[in-house]
Protein backbone atom coordinates (compact mmCIF):
# COMPACT_ATOMS: atom_id res chain seq x y z
CA UNK A 1 0.00 0.00 0.00
CA UNK A 2 2.79 2.39 0.96
CA UNK A 3 4.79 1.64 -2.18
CA UNK A 4 1.67 2.08 -4.33
CA UNK A 5 0.93 5.42 -2.65
CA UNK A 6 4.52 6.62 -3.13
CA UNK A 7 4.49 5.51 -6.78
CA UNK A 8 1.25 7.40 -7.43
CA UNK A 9 2.68 10.48 -5.72
CA UNK A 10 5.88 10.38 -7.76
CA UNK A 11 3.95 9.94 -11.02
CA UNK A 12 1.63 12.81 -10.22
CA UNK A 13 4.45 15.38 -10.08
CA UNK A 14 5.91 15.80 -13.61
CA UNK A 15 8.58 18.17 -12.36
CA UNK A 16 10.23 15.26 -10.59
CA UNK A 17 10.92 13.46 -13.90
CA UNK A 18 14.39 13.82 -15.41
CA UNK A 19 14.30 16.42 -18.18
CA UNK A 20 16.84 14.66 -20.37
CA UNK A 21 16.56 10.96 -19.84
CA UNK A 22 19.83 9.18 -20.54
CA UNK A 23 19.00 6.61 -23.16
CA UNK A 24 21.63 3.96 -22.54
CA UNK A 25 20.00 1.48 -24.88
CA UNK A 26 19.60 3.83 -27.80
CA UNK A 27 15.82 3.58 -27.61
CA UNK A 28 15.81 -0.06 -28.71
CA UNK A 29 12.95 -1.77 -26.89
CA UNK A 30 14.33 -5.27 -27.40
CA UNK A 31 17.65 -4.37 -25.84
CA UNK A 32 15.81 -2.72 -22.96
CA UNK A 33 13.73 -5.89 -22.55
CA UNK A 34 16.91 -7.98 -22.65
CA UNK A 35 18.57 -5.83 -19.98
CA UNK A 36 15.46 -5.71 -17.78
CA UNK A 37 15.11 -9.50 -17.88
CA UNK A 38 18.81 -9.94 -17.09
CA UNK A 39 18.56 -7.56 -14.14
CA UNK A 40 15.42 -9.31 -12.92
CA UNK A 41 17.15 -12.71 -13.13
CA UNK A 42 20.06 -11.31 -11.11
CA UNK A 43 17.52 -10.15 -8.52
CA UNK A 44 16.12 -13.67 -8.39
CA UNK A 45 19.61 -15.11 -8.01
CA UNK A 46 20.21 -12.57 -5.22
CA UNK A 47 17.13 -13.86 -3.42
CA UNK A 48 18.36 -17.40 -4.05
CA UNK A 49 21.66 -16.61 -2.36
CA UNK A 50 19.82 -15.15 0.65
CA UNK A 51 17.61 -18.25 0.82
CA UNK A 52 20.76 -20.38 0.61
CA UNK A 53 22.28 -18.49 3.56
CA UNK A 54 19.08 -19.10 5.56
CA UNK A 55 19.20 -22.77 4.54
CA UNK A 56 22.78 -23.09 5.84
CA UNK A 57 21.82 -21.36 9.10
CA UNK A 58 18.81 -23.66 9.58
CA UNK A 59 20.96 -26.70 8.80
CA UNK A 60 23.56 -25.53 11.33
CA UNK A 61 20.87 -24.94 13.97
CA UNK A 62 19.31 -28.38 13.48
CA UNK A 63 22.62 -30.24 13.47
CA UNK A 64 23.90 -28.36 16.52
CA UNK A 65 20.55 -28.46 18.32
CA UNK A 66 20.40 -24.70 18.67
CA UNK A 67 16.80 -23.83 17.99
CA UNK A 68 16.06 -20.86 20.21
CA UNK A 69 16.88 -17.17 19.84
CA UNK A 70 17.28 -15.95 16.27
CA UNK A 71 17.17 -19.50 14.93
CA UNK A 72 13.57 -19.81 16.12
CA UNK A 73 12.52 -17.34 13.40
CA UNK A 74 13.96 -19.34 10.50
CA UNK A 75 11.58 -21.25 8.22
CA UNK A 76 11.73 -25.03 8.06
CA UNK A 77 14.61 -26.58 6.15
CA UNK A 78 12.28 -28.31 3.69
CA UNK A 79 10.47 -25.04 2.95
CA UNK A 80 13.80 -23.25 2.40
CA UNK A 81 14.92 -26.01 0.04
CA UNK A 82 11.66 -25.73 -1.92
CA UNK A 83 11.88 -21.93 -2.14
CA UNK A 84 15.50 -22.20 -3.30
CA UNK A 85 14.56 -24.77 -5.94
CA UNK A 86 11.80 -22.57 -7.35
CA UNK A 87 14.04 -19.50 -7.36
CA UNK A 88 16.75 -21.44 -9.20
CA UNK A 89 14.29 -22.53 -11.90
CA UNK A 90 12.90 -18.98 -12.21
CA UNK A 91 16.36 -17.40 -12.43
CA UNK A 92 17.62 -19.86 -15.03
CA UNK A 93 14.51 -19.39 -17.20
CA UNK A 94 14.64 -15.58 -16.95
CA UNK A 95 18.34 -15.36 -17.76
CA UNK A 96 17.90 -17.84 -20.64
CA UNK A 97 15.12 -15.68 -22.09
CA UNK A 98 17.24 -12.57 -21.62
CA UNK A 99 20.18 -14.24 -23.40
CA UNK A 100 17.96 -15.38 -26.26
CA UNK A 101 16.62 -11.86 -26.77
CA UNK A 102 20.16 -10.45 -26.58
CA UNK A 103 21.50 -13.11 -28.96
CA UNK A 104 18.93 -12.24 -31.62
CA UNK A 105 20.25 -8.66 -31.55
CA UNK A 106 23.89 -9.74 -31.43
CA UNK A 107 23.49 -11.88 -34.58
CA UNK A 108 22.54 -8.73 -36.52
CA UNK A 109 25.43 -6.71 -35.17
CA UNK A 110 28.18 -9.04 -33.89
CA UNK A 111 30.68 -6.20 -33.58
CA UNK A 112 28.42 -4.13 -31.35
CA UNK A 113 28.64 -6.38 -28.30
CA UNK A 114 31.59 -7.02 -26.06
CA UNK A 115 32.54 -10.72 -26.53
CA UNK A 116 33.80 -10.89 -22.91
CA UNK A 117 30.34 -9.83 -21.76
CA UNK A 118 28.70 -12.57 -23.82
CA UNK A 119 31.14 -15.20 -22.57
CA UNK A 120 30.79 -14.20 -18.92
CA UNK A 121 26.99 -13.97 -18.95
CA UNK A 122 26.61 -17.21 -20.87
CA UNK A 123 29.00 -18.92 -18.42
CA UNK A 124 27.01 -17.71 -15.44
CA UNK A 125 23.78 -18.93 -17.00
CA UNK A 126 25.44 -22.26 -17.85
CA UNK A 127 26.73 -22.66 -14.30
CA UNK A 128 23.26 -22.03 -12.85
CA UNK A 129 21.72 -24.35 -15.47
CA UNK A 130 24.19 -27.11 -14.55
CA UNK A 131 23.42 -26.60 -10.84
CA UNK A 132 19.69 -26.88 -11.63
CA UNK A 133 20.20 -30.03 -13.72
CA UNK A 134 22.25 -31.66 -10.96
CA UNK A 135 19.60 -30.63 -8.41
CA UNK A 136 16.84 -32.20 -10.52
CA UNK A 137 18.89 -35.40 -10.86
CA UNK A 138 19.52 -35.53 -7.13
CA UNK A 139 23.27 -35.10 -7.55
CA UNK A 140 23.62 -31.66 -5.94
CA UNK A 141 21.58 -31.13 -2.80
CA UNK A 142 21.31 -29.40 0.52
CA UNK A 143 24.38 -27.66 1.88
CA UNK A 144 26.49 -28.15 -1.25
CA UNK A 145 23.82 -26.66 -3.49
CA UNK A 146 23.36 -23.74 -1.08
CA UNK A 147 27.10 -23.01 -1.10
CA UNK A 148 27.23 -23.26 -4.90
CA UNK A 149 24.35 -20.77 -5.21
CA UNK A 150 26.07 -18.29 -2.90
CA UNK A 151 29.41 -18.55 -4.76
CA UNK A 152 27.72 -18.26 -8.17
CA UNK A 153 25.92 -15.09 -7.12
CA UNK A 154 29.16 -13.58 -5.80
CA UNK A 155 30.81 -14.38 -9.16
CA UNK A 156 27.79 -12.95 -11.02
CA UNK A 157 28.05 -9.71 -9.04
CA UNK A 158 31.80 -9.42 -9.65
CA UNK A 159 31.32 -10.04 -13.35
CA UNK A 160 28.89 -7.12 -13.69
CA UNK A 161 31.83 -4.78 -14.17
CA UNK A 162 32.66 -6.70 -17.36
CA UNK A 163 29.17 -6.41 -18.76
CA UNK A 164 29.46 -3.16 -20.72
CA UNK A 165 28.83 -2.66 -24.41
CA UNK A 166 31.93 -2.23 -26.62
CA UNK A 167 30.45 0.87 -28.26
CA UNK A 168 27.26 2.86 -27.72
CA UNK A 169 24.19 0.94 -28.74
CA UNK A 170 22.84 2.42 -31.98
CA UNK A 171 19.75 4.56 -31.77
CA UNK A 172 16.43 3.88 -33.46
CA UNK A 173 17.65 5.48 -36.71
CA UNK A 174 20.22 2.78 -37.26
CA UNK A 175 18.07 -0.09 -36.03
CA UNK A 176 17.16 -2.45 -38.86
CA UNK A 177 13.55 -2.12 -39.95
CA UNK A 178 12.78 -5.80 -39.20
CA UNK A 179 13.33 -5.85 -35.48
CA UNK A 180 13.07 -9.21 -33.62
Amino acid at each position, binding site marked *: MLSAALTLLSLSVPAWDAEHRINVFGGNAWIEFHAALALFSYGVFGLLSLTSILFLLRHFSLKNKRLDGTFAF*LPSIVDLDLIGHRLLITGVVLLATSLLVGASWWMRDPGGVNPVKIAVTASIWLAYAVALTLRLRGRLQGKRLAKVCIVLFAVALLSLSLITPRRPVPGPASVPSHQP
Partner: protein
Amino acid sequence: VSSPDVSPVLFVVGASHQTTPIELRERLALTPEKLAQLHDAASRLAGLRELAVVSTCNRVELYGVATDANAVAALEQEFCRLSGLDPATFATIRRLADGSDAIRHLVAVASGLESQMLGENEIFGQVKSAYEGAQQRRSVGPVLNRVFQKAFQSAKHVRTQTAITVGQVSVANVAVELAGTIFGDLSATRVMLLGAGDISEKTARAFQSRGAGSLTVASRTLARALELATEFGAVALPFEQVGQRLHEFDILVCSTAAPHAVITHGAVATALRRRPAHPLFFIDLALPRDVEPDVATLENAFVYNLDDLARIAERNRAAREAEVARALVLVGERADSIWRQVAPQASGRLEPR
Protein backbone atom coordinates in the same frame (compact mmCIF):
# COMPACT_ATOMS: atom_id res chain seq x y z
CA VAL B 1 -19.37 -14.55 56.46
CA SER B 2 -18.30 -11.89 58.86
CA SER B 3 -21.82 -11.03 59.91
CA PRO B 4 -25.26 -12.19 58.73
CA ASP B 5 -26.29 -8.83 57.30
CA VAL B 6 -23.31 -8.32 54.98
CA SER B 7 -23.16 -9.04 51.28
CA PRO B 8 -22.81 -12.63 49.96
CA VAL B 9 -19.32 -14.02 49.59
CA LEU B 10 -17.61 -15.19 46.43
CA PHE B 11 -15.41 -18.19 47.24
CA VAL B 12 -13.35 -21.03 45.87
CA VAL B 13 -12.59 -24.21 47.78
CA GLY B 14 -10.73 -27.20 46.39
CA ALA B 15 -7.49 -29.08 46.05
CA SER B 16 -4.91 -29.30 43.30
CA HIS B 17 -1.68 -31.06 42.38
CA GLN B 18 0.20 -28.39 44.35
CA THR B 19 -1.00 -29.72 47.69
CA THR B 20 -2.45 -33.13 46.93
CA PRO B 21 -0.61 -36.36 46.13
CA ILE B 22 -1.85 -38.35 43.17
CA GLU B 23 -3.43 -41.09 45.37
CA LEU B 24 -5.73 -38.51 46.94
CA ARG B 25 -6.40 -36.71 43.65
CA GLU B 26 -7.67 -39.98 42.22
CA ARG B 27 -10.29 -40.06 44.94
CA LEU B 28 -11.19 -36.40 44.62
CA ALA B 29 -11.76 -36.47 40.85
CA LEU B 30 -15.48 -36.17 40.17
CA THR B 31 -17.06 -38.55 37.69
CA PRO B 32 -20.02 -37.13 35.72
CA GLU B 33 -22.36 -39.03 38.06
CA LYS B 34 -20.72 -37.67 41.20
CA LEU B 35 -20.70 -34.18 39.72
CA ALA B 36 -24.45 -34.43 39.11
CA GLN B 37 -24.93 -35.67 42.69
CA LEU B 38 -22.86 -32.78 44.04
CA HIS B 39 -24.93 -30.24 42.12
CA ASP B 40 -28.07 -31.94 43.29
CA ALA B 41 -26.94 -31.80 46.92
CA ALA B 42 -25.74 -28.21 46.52
CA SER B 43 -29.11 -27.10 45.19
CA ARG B 44 -30.63 -28.15 48.50
CA LEU B 45 -28.09 -26.30 50.63
CA ALA B 46 -29.50 -23.24 52.29
CA GLY B 47 -27.39 -20.17 51.65
CA LEU B 48 -25.58 -21.42 48.55
CA ARG B 49 -26.61 -19.17 45.66
CA GLU B 50 -24.29 -20.13 42.83
CA LEU B 51 -21.88 -22.99 42.04
CA ALA B 52 -19.46 -24.01 39.27
CA VAL B 53 -17.18 -27.04 39.60
CA VAL B 54 -13.84 -27.33 37.82
CA SER B 55 -12.76 -30.96 37.91
CA THR B 56 -9.66 -32.13 36.02
CA CYS B 57 -7.04 -34.78 36.70
CA ASN B 58 -4.96 -32.15 38.51
CA ARG B 59 -7.57 -30.17 40.42
CA VAL B 60 -11.07 -30.13 41.81
CA GLU B 61 -12.27 -26.65 42.65
CA LEU B 62 -15.71 -25.45 43.69
CA TYR B 63 -16.41 -21.81 42.83
CA GLY B 64 -19.50 -20.39 44.44
CA VAL B 65 -21.44 -17.57 45.97
CA ALA B 66 -22.84 -18.14 49.44
CA THR B 67 -24.70 -16.04 51.95
CA ASP B 68 -22.73 -17.38 54.87
CA ALA B 69 -19.71 -19.44 55.82
CA ASN B 70 -21.92 -22.29 56.99
CA ALA B 71 -23.09 -22.87 53.43
CA VAL B 72 -19.49 -23.16 52.29
CA ALA B 73 -18.75 -25.62 55.10
CA ALA B 74 -21.84 -27.65 54.22
CA LEU B 75 -20.75 -27.77 50.57
CA GLU B 76 -17.34 -29.03 51.66
CA GLN B 77 -19.05 -31.72 53.74
CA GLU B 78 -21.10 -32.86 50.76
CA PHE B 79 -18.03 -32.94 48.57
CA CYS B 80 -16.08 -35.03 51.08
CA ARG B 81 -19.04 -37.40 51.49
CA LEU B 82 -19.25 -37.95 47.72
CA SER B 83 -15.48 -38.39 47.41
CA GLY B 84 -15.32 -40.73 50.37
CA LEU B 85 -12.70 -38.50 51.93
CA ASP B 86 -12.35 -37.70 55.59
CA PRO B 87 -13.11 -33.95 56.08
CA ALA B 88 -10.12 -33.68 58.39
CA THR B 89 -7.85 -35.00 55.61
CA PHE B 90 -9.45 -32.66 53.12
CA ALA B 91 -8.80 -29.75 55.47
CA THR B 92 -5.05 -30.44 55.20
CA ILE B 93 -4.97 -30.22 51.41
CA ARG B 94 -7.73 -27.81 50.54
CA ARG B 95 -7.27 -24.29 49.29
CA LEU B 96 -9.86 -21.73 50.34
CA ALA B 97 -10.03 -18.20 49.04
CA ASP B 98 -12.66 -15.50 48.83
CA GLY B 99 -13.37 -12.21 47.10
CA SER B 100 -10.65 -10.87 44.85
CA ASP B 101 -8.31 -13.73 45.84
CA ALA B 102 -10.80 -16.24 44.44
CA ILE B 103 -10.96 -14.29 41.18
CA ARG B 104 -7.19 -14.02 41.05
CA HIS B 105 -6.97 -17.79 41.49
CA LEU B 106 -9.50 -18.47 38.71
CA VAL B 107 -7.68 -16.19 36.25
CA ALA B 108 -4.34 -17.81 37.13
CA VAL B 109 -5.82 -21.30 36.66
CA ALA B 110 -7.42 -20.45 33.30
CA SER B 111 -4.16 -18.84 32.15
CA GLY B 112 -2.23 -22.06 32.85
CA LEU B 113 -0.17 -20.43 35.58
CA GLU B 114 -1.32 -22.97 38.16
CA SER B 115 -0.91 -25.98 35.86
CA GLN B 116 1.55 -28.78 36.46
CA MET B 117 2.91 -28.04 32.99
CA LEU B 118 3.21 -24.26 33.14
CA GLY B 119 1.34 -22.44 30.40
CA GLU B 120 -0.38 -25.53 28.95
CA ASN B 121 -3.43 -24.87 26.80
CA GLU B 122 -5.75 -27.65 27.87
CA ILE B 123 -6.78 -26.09 31.16
CA PHE B 124 -8.43 -23.12 29.45
CA GLY B 125 -10.84 -25.48 27.63
CA GLN B 126 -11.43 -27.48 30.80
CA VAL B 127 -12.42 -24.40 32.80
CA LYS B 128 -14.63 -23.28 29.93
CA SER B 129 -16.34 -26.70 29.82
CA ALA B 130 -16.87 -26.54 33.59
CA TYR B 131 -18.55 -23.16 33.25
CA GLU B 132 -20.71 -24.33 30.35
CA GLY B 133 -21.73 -27.37 32.40
CA ALA B 134 -22.73 -25.10 35.28
CA GLN B 135 -24.68 -22.88 32.87
CA GLN B 136 -26.61 -25.90 31.58
CA ARG B 137 -27.44 -26.86 35.18
CA ARG B 138 -28.44 -23.25 35.82
CA SER B 139 -26.24 -23.24 38.90
CA VAL B 140 -24.47 -20.01 37.98
CA GLY B 141 -25.99 -16.58 38.45
CA PRO B 142 -25.06 -12.92 37.99
CA VAL B 143 -21.81 -13.07 39.99
CA LEU B 144 -20.25 -16.26 38.64
CA ASN B 145 -21.42 -15.49 35.09
CA ARG B 146 -19.53 -12.23 35.15
CA VAL B 147 -16.53 -13.64 37.00
CA PHE B 148 -16.07 -16.58 34.62
CA GLN B 149 -16.65 -14.62 31.42
CA LYS B 150 -14.27 -11.88 32.47
CA ALA B 151 -11.76 -14.48 33.69
CA PHE B 152 -11.71 -16.07 30.21
CA GLN B 153 -11.01 -12.70 28.61
CA SER B 154 -8.29 -12.04 31.17
CA ALA B 155 -6.70 -15.46 30.69
CA LYS B 156 -6.55 -14.88 26.91
CA HIS B 157 -4.96 -11.50 27.57
CA VAL B 158 -2.33 -13.01 29.89
CA ARG B 159 -1.54 -15.81 27.44
CA THR B 160 -1.12 -13.47 24.48
CA GLN B 161 0.73 -10.69 26.28
CA THR B 162 3.34 -12.94 27.88
CA ALA B 163 5.47 -15.86 26.67
CA ILE B 164 4.15 -18.39 29.20
CA THR B 165 2.78 -20.56 26.37
CA VAL B 166 5.77 -20.25 24.03
CA GLY B 167 7.85 -23.38 23.35
CA GLN B 168 6.74 -26.91 24.12
CA VAL B 169 7.60 -28.40 27.50
CA SER B 170 6.78 -32.09 27.07
CA VAL B 171 9.14 -34.44 25.25
CA ALA B 172 6.43 -35.61 22.83
CA ASN B 173 5.41 -32.07 21.92
CA VAL B 174 9.02 -30.92 21.60
CA ALA B 175 9.55 -33.77 19.12
CA VAL B 176 6.57 -32.61 17.07
CA GLU B 177 7.71 -28.99 17.19
CA LEU B 178 11.14 -30.07 15.97
CA ALA B 179 9.55 -31.97 13.10
CA GLY B 180 7.92 -28.66 12.16
CA THR B 181 11.31 -26.94 11.95
CA ILE B 182 12.45 -29.62 9.52
CA PHE B 183 9.34 -30.28 7.42
CA GLY B 184 7.16 -27.22 7.99
CA ASP B 185 3.67 -28.49 7.28
CA LEU B 186 3.37 -32.01 8.69
CA SER B 187 0.33 -33.00 6.62
CA ALA B 188 2.50 -34.66 3.97
CA THR B 189 4.90 -36.39 6.35
CA ARG B 190 5.00 -40.13 6.93
CA VAL B 191 5.75 -41.10 10.51
CA MET B 192 6.95 -44.51 11.65
CA LEU B 193 6.74 -45.59 15.28
CA LEU B 194 9.46 -48.12 15.93
CA GLY B 195 8.49 -49.79 19.18
CA ALA B 196 5.03 -49.59 20.66
CA GLY B 197 5.56 -48.45 24.23
CA ASP B 198 3.89 -45.68 26.21
CA ILE B 199 6.24 -42.96 25.03
CA SER B 200 5.66 -43.98 21.39
CA GLU B 201 1.97 -43.75 22.02
CA LYS B 202 2.24 -40.24 23.47
CA THR B 203 4.43 -39.07 20.61
CA ALA B 204 2.08 -40.63 18.06
CA ARG B 205 -0.81 -38.82 19.67
CA ALA B 206 1.08 -35.54 19.48
CA PHE B 207 1.89 -36.10 15.80
CA GLN B 208 -1.69 -37.05 15.05
CA SER B 209 -3.02 -33.94 16.78
CA ARG B 210 -0.70 -31.83 14.60
CA GLY B 211 -2.08 -33.49 11.44
CA ALA B 212 0.80 -35.76 10.43
CA GLY B 213 0.10 -37.35 7.04
CA SER B 214 0.31 -41.03 7.94
CA LEU B 215 1.36 -43.25 10.82
CA THR B 216 2.96 -46.68 10.63
CA VAL B 217 3.73 -48.85 13.64
CA ALA B 218 6.51 -51.43 13.71
CA SER B 219 7.22 -53.56 16.74
CA ARG B 220 8.98 -56.83 17.44
CA THR B 221 5.60 -58.02 18.70
CA LEU B 222 3.34 -57.71 15.68
CA ALA B 223 0.23 -58.11 17.84
CA ARG B 224 1.19 -55.02 19.88
CA ALA B 225 1.96 -53.11 16.66
CA LEU B 226 -1.46 -54.08 15.30
CA GLU B 227 -3.12 -53.01 18.54
CA LEU B 228 -1.50 -49.57 18.49
CA ALA B 229 -2.05 -49.22 14.74
CA THR B 230 -5.76 -49.93 15.22
CA GLU B 231 -5.96 -47.34 17.98
CA PHE B 232 -4.46 -44.63 15.76
CA GLY B 233 -5.93 -45.72 12.43
CA ALA B 234 -2.35 -46.49 11.36
CA VAL B 235 -0.65 -49.28 9.41
CA ALA B 236 1.32 -52.05 11.13
CA LEU B 237 4.64 -53.13 9.63
CA PRO B 238 6.63 -56.29 10.45
CA PHE B 239 9.79 -55.28 12.30
CA GLU B 240 12.00 -57.13 9.81
CA GLN B 241 10.88 -54.82 6.96
CA VAL B 242 11.91 -51.60 8.69
CA GLY B 243 15.44 -51.50 7.22
CA GLN B 244 14.31 -52.05 3.62
CA ARG B 245 11.50 -49.52 3.80
CA LEU B 246 13.28 -46.79 5.74
CA HIS B 247 13.34 -44.47 2.69
CA GLU B 248 9.54 -44.40 2.60
CA PHE B 249 9.34 -42.44 5.86
CA ASP B 250 10.18 -38.88 6.91
CA ILE B 251 10.08 -39.22 10.69
CA LEU B 252 11.06 -42.23 12.80
CA VAL B 253 10.06 -42.34 16.46
CA CYS B 254 12.26 -45.03 17.99
CA SER B 255 11.51 -46.48 21.41
CA THR B 256 12.31 -50.18 21.31
CA ALA B 257 13.70 -52.06 24.28
CA ALA B 258 16.47 -53.53 22.13
CA PRO B 259 19.83 -53.79 23.93
CA HIS B 260 21.67 -52.38 20.88
CA ALA B 261 21.07 -49.92 18.04
CA VAL B 262 18.52 -51.11 15.51
CA ILE B 263 18.98 -48.25 13.02
CA THR B 264 22.46 -48.41 11.54
CA HIS B 265 24.55 -45.84 9.71
CA GLY B 266 24.62 -48.06 6.62
CA ALA B 267 20.85 -48.50 6.50
CA VAL B 268 20.24 -44.75 6.81
CA ALA B 269 22.89 -43.88 4.21
CA THR B 270 21.19 -46.27 1.77
CA ALA B 271 17.77 -44.82 2.54
CA LEU B 272 19.02 -41.25 2.03
CA ARG B 273 20.50 -42.14 -1.35
CA ARG B 274 17.03 -43.26 -2.41
CA ARG B 275 15.47 -39.95 -1.31
CA PRO B 276 18.25 -37.40 -1.81
CA ALA B 277 16.10 -34.29 -1.59
CA HIS B 278 14.23 -35.31 1.55
CA PRO B 279 15.60 -35.27 5.09
CA LEU B 280 15.09 -38.05 7.61
CA PHE B 281 14.27 -37.11 11.18
CA PHE B 282 15.02 -39.61 13.96
CA ILE B 283 13.47 -39.15 17.38
CA ASP B 284 15.33 -41.64 19.51
CA LEU B 285 13.44 -42.08 22.78
CA ALA B 286 15.01 -45.44 23.62
CA LEU B 287 17.59 -46.25 26.27
CA PRO B 288 19.95 -47.72 25.20
CA ARG B 289 19.66 -45.73 22.01
CA ASP B 290 18.05 -47.26 18.91
CA VAL B 291 19.92 -45.11 16.39
CA GLU B 292 23.67 -45.40 15.93
CA PRO B 293 25.26 -42.08 16.98
CA ASP B 294 27.18 -41.67 13.71
CA VAL B 295 23.90 -41.53 11.77
CA ALA B 296 23.92 -37.85 12.80
CA THR B 297 27.01 -37.29 10.63
CA LEU B 298 24.95 -37.93 7.49
CA GLU B 299 24.03 -34.56 5.99
CA ASN B 300 20.32 -35.07 5.56
CA ALA B 301 19.73 -37.07 8.77
CA PHE B 302 18.71 -35.24 11.92
CA VAL B 303 18.95 -37.28 15.11
CA TYR B 304 17.55 -36.15 18.45
CA ASN B 305 17.69 -38.43 21.46
CA LEU B 306 15.87 -38.30 24.79
CA ASP B 307 18.49 -36.01 26.37
CA ASP B 308 18.32 -33.54 23.48
CA LEU B 309 14.54 -33.33 23.69
CA ALA B 310 14.58 -33.05 27.48
CA ARG B 311 17.15 -30.24 27.24
CA ILE B 312 14.95 -28.30 24.80
CA ALA B 313 11.89 -28.89 26.98
CA GLU B 314 13.80 -27.68 30.03
CA ARG B 315 14.99 -24.56 28.19
CA ASN B 316 11.42 -23.80 27.12
CA ARG B 317 10.18 -24.35 30.66
CA ALA B 318 12.82 -21.99 32.05
CA ALA B 319 11.85 -19.37 29.46
CA ARG B 320 8.20 -19.75 30.48
CA GLU B 321 9.05 -19.43 34.16
CA ALA B 322 10.91 -16.22 33.47
CA GLU B 323 7.58 -14.84 32.26
CA VAL B 324 5.60 -15.88 35.33
CA ALA B 325 6.27 -12.71 37.32
CA ARG B 326 5.05 -10.56 34.43
CA ALA B 327 2.00 -12.80 33.98
CA LEU B 328 1.15 -12.58 37.69
CA VAL B 329 1.15 -8.79 37.53
CA LEU B 330 -1.34 -8.96 34.65
CA VAL B 331 -3.45 -11.51 36.55
CA GLY B 332 -3.53 -9.18 39.56
CA GLU B 333 -4.58 -6.17 37.48
CA ARG B 334 -7.32 -8.09 35.70
CA ALA B 335 -8.58 -9.75 38.89
CA ASP B 336 -8.82 -6.37 40.64
CA SER B 337 -10.79 -5.00 37.71
CA ILE B 338 -13.23 -7.95 37.79
CA TRP B 339 -13.52 -7.64 41.56
CA ARG B 340 -14.53 -3.97 41.26
CA GLN B 341 -17.36 -5.06 38.95
CA VAL B 342 -18.75 -7.85 41.15
CA ALA B 343 -17.98 -6.48 44.61
CA PRO B 344 -21.33 -4.68 44.90
CA GLN B 345 -23.05 -8.07 44.63
CA ALA B 346 -20.65 -10.25 46.61
CA SER B 347 -18.34 -8.24 48.80
CA GLY B 348 -18.60 -10.49 51.87
CA ARG B 349 -15.54 -12.23 53.30
CA LEU B 350 -15.14 -15.62 54.94
CA GLU B 351 -14.01 -15.64 58.53
CA PRO B 352 -10.83 -17.62 59.16
CA ARG B 353 -11.92 -21.18 59.93
